[in-house]
């Protein structure tokens, strides 16, 4: 299949931008439009755009970890965000927040960790399925 030069050129620059945007969505999600789900889907679109424009193999080479590892990391961080408050003697999944916000990121707390987990799981699941299909 002939690859479009325009598309592959654009994808190289769009993908990082979209990834940054997805992280932006994730971080501000607790207060503004966004969140782990939406952010994860945007990130996935970015990665899949890259895979279609170049090749699935190129995306695999680009990814630092296996997509299924992302799923485990995501589930683990979502789960640990529930466990952390237990260490402080609170019930499972009580939201704990740092007193003062961190510059750029803003308010930081266990729900953000949970949302990051959702973000990673969504990326892992969709990229894994789509890559498997694309490589078959």
């Amino acid at each position, binding site marked *: 299949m002939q690859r479009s030069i325009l598309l592959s050129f654009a994808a190289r620059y769009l993908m990082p931008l979209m990834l940054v945007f997805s992280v932006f969505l994730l971080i501000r999600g607790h207060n503004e439009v966004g*969140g782990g789900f939406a952010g994860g889907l945007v990130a996935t*679109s970015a990665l899949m755009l890259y895979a*279609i424009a170049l090749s699935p193999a190129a995306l695999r080479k680009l990814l630092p970890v296996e997509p299924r590892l992302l799923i485990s990391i995501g*589930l683990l961080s979502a789960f640990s965000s529930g466990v952390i408050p237990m260490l402080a003697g609170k019930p499972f999944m009580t939201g704990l927040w740092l007193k003062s916000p961190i510059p750029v990121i803003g308010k930081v707390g266990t729900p953000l960790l949970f949302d990051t987990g959702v973000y990673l799981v969504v990326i892992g*699941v*969709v990229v894994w399925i789509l890559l*498997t299909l694309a490589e078959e």
Partner: protein
Amino acid sequence: MDPLILLTGTVLSGILLAACAPLLYRRLGAYAAGLALFPLAIFIQLCLAIPALAAGATWQAALPWVPSLGLSLNVKLDGLGLVMALLISGIGALVIIYGGAYLKGHPFLGRFYSLVILFMTAMLGVVLSNNALLLFVFWELTSISSFFLIGFEHHKANARAAAWQALLVTGSGGLAMLAGFALLGKITGSFEISQWIESSAAVIAHPLAPAAFLLILAGAATKSAQFPFHFWLPNAMEAPTPVSAYLHSATMVKAGVYLLARLFPVFGGLALWPVVVTTLGLVTLVGGALLALAQTDLKRLLAYTTISALGSMVFFLGLGTSLAVKTAVAVLIAHALYKGALFLVAGSVDHGTGTRDIAILGGIGRAMPFTAAAAGLAGLSMAGIPPLLGFIAKELMYETTLESTLPALLSGLLLVANVGMVAVAGWVGYRPFWGQPGQEDLHPHEGSAGLWLPPILLAALSLLLGAFPQLAGKWLVAPAAQAVWQATLSVKLSIWHGLTPMLGLSALTLLLGIGLSAARQRLQPAIARFWHALAKFGPAALYPRSLHTVLSFAAWQTNLLQSGYLRLYVGSIILFTVVLAIFTMARQSIQLVLPTISPPRFYDVILIGIILTAAFLVTRARSRLATMALLGSIGFSIAVIFLLYSAPDLAMVQFAIETLTVILFVLVLYRLPKFKQLSSQSAKITDMLVALMGGILMTGLMLIVSAHNSDAHLARYFVENSLPLANGRNIVNVILVDFRGFDTMGEITVLSIAALGVFSLIKLAAGGKKKRQVPLARGKK
């Protein structure tokens, strides 16, 4: 000991250690037997605790776990738990050392350590739990670790089948027990066992008490291999011998006995108790001993006598006098010691000669002196010869039956069972070592110290406790019996009572037993033929038949329901929802109230027009691409509606999903078959009706919800509390990650599992086409 250390130190750290054990084994190699230090530490701690507990103290600690379910990490150590925990930790330490030597060089030795420690922890959990639900959790954990340990040699079909059988039998019993616990929880309003004991009068008066009792008894009977569930235990001998010694004679199978003893103060006053429990125990006691006489394999001989011994404990708990309770505890301790030792001996014999068949074995005592010594001591205890602990237990047994209401009958049956025990003790403890050697040259040799020291220690303990019966009585039997009896009991064990009827019965038992033992070659074939003829009526024959029935029913209903057609799945889901919703609405007589509807804006009309047109055209589409485009336009229009009605989060997710769907479609487009209209006209009409019903139902539901939601206190709650409680202004996200975070956790888990499923389906389908033999070959192995 601090109660909290009791909880964390014994139970929780064991689980951690079990997880690390394979890694430790890889690092430490043979030194991994040092894992025995963990149970040893527990054992020493418990030994230090004996004086306080014997004085009547109990140690308790509780942490909440799931308070809404009544589940708490509530542990309590009393006399009964102490005796069990001593056996579990003490024999556990020996079994880990022995297992290291027995399975030396085995590729799964690390796994063995891990599973044994996991089992030990679970078993300690069972005997320490004061919360019935917690007890159930640990109970199931022992079943599961037993499953893995029986199937340890998982390349053998027999081992797998035996593991499965044990899991099914004890697992279904466990479920019955859980139902019984639930009933008791309902009756008393609590799941704390100490609470049940306090309110036992109310329990017994309750009409549901017999049901609860029988359900729990089913759990105890399956676990402790009582008739008619006994058949799994001999099959479980597929496990490596240290496992049989530990799980299937010394500890796990006693969990049922333990449970009955623990709940004796609750149910002991029930009219059913003495009748059912004594009958159950008596049948198992006599049946197990008689079945044992037909066996020639060392381990199976020991397994059937274990069944018999478990039957005797249940039987004495059923009699329910204070003497009977003492007897049950004494038998429990004596049996764990001699039977654990004999199993380990059987393993050493197998290891040293390569066979466990008593018809072949003989005269190996000279080559294996230490093993022979352990076997001799343990055999003497099993046969009930003074001054071993087994003798004291047997004297107590006869004393109890002679004092019962049916002295002649019960003592007679007990005599029959005990004669069998003596005979088997001779076959296992004497014959292989000092009997006539068989034809074959076995080249027997003594193994390393790890193979003979643990059985010698166990057997020596039988001797020690038997020689100093006052010690055993005061420090072990009395605290446990008091915990069961719930009142102070004086326990004075001694070897010499004077010339009593018990002594006469003991002597008679020995005489008959030795005679039977000597006549093995003449009698055994006849006994074996008798049981063989009877076997097809036994519960062991019923098991495969009922299993087959269940499996074929499952296959039948799967074929019926899982047609493989997506449209049938979707159709049945919609129809089922419609029927259920209409049924509910009819029962609640919900009125359909039309909410006040503001006049639509022109772009609303346009969007809805697009959606409706596209939805109609999709049914007439002639190509995949057109279908895709039309569905996409529906999706995007809905996303725009979300945007217009100020739900940007939803809109964003919807946009992203629509985009990804297109990508997915592009990826699979080339591999899909030709797009064809396959449905007949009537099928289409049916589909349309189903679709319409679903659509109408959803519309109706939305209308009802929005009409009833006029006060909208839930929505208001979220709006008002999103910032103060959850520190976020985006209500949608706050609901997702905080208010309903548990749901989201479940959803992402489901999502991950779905991804796993998709992956394996794609890979399997692709792999299956290329090399079809692979799954078949795997199945055969």
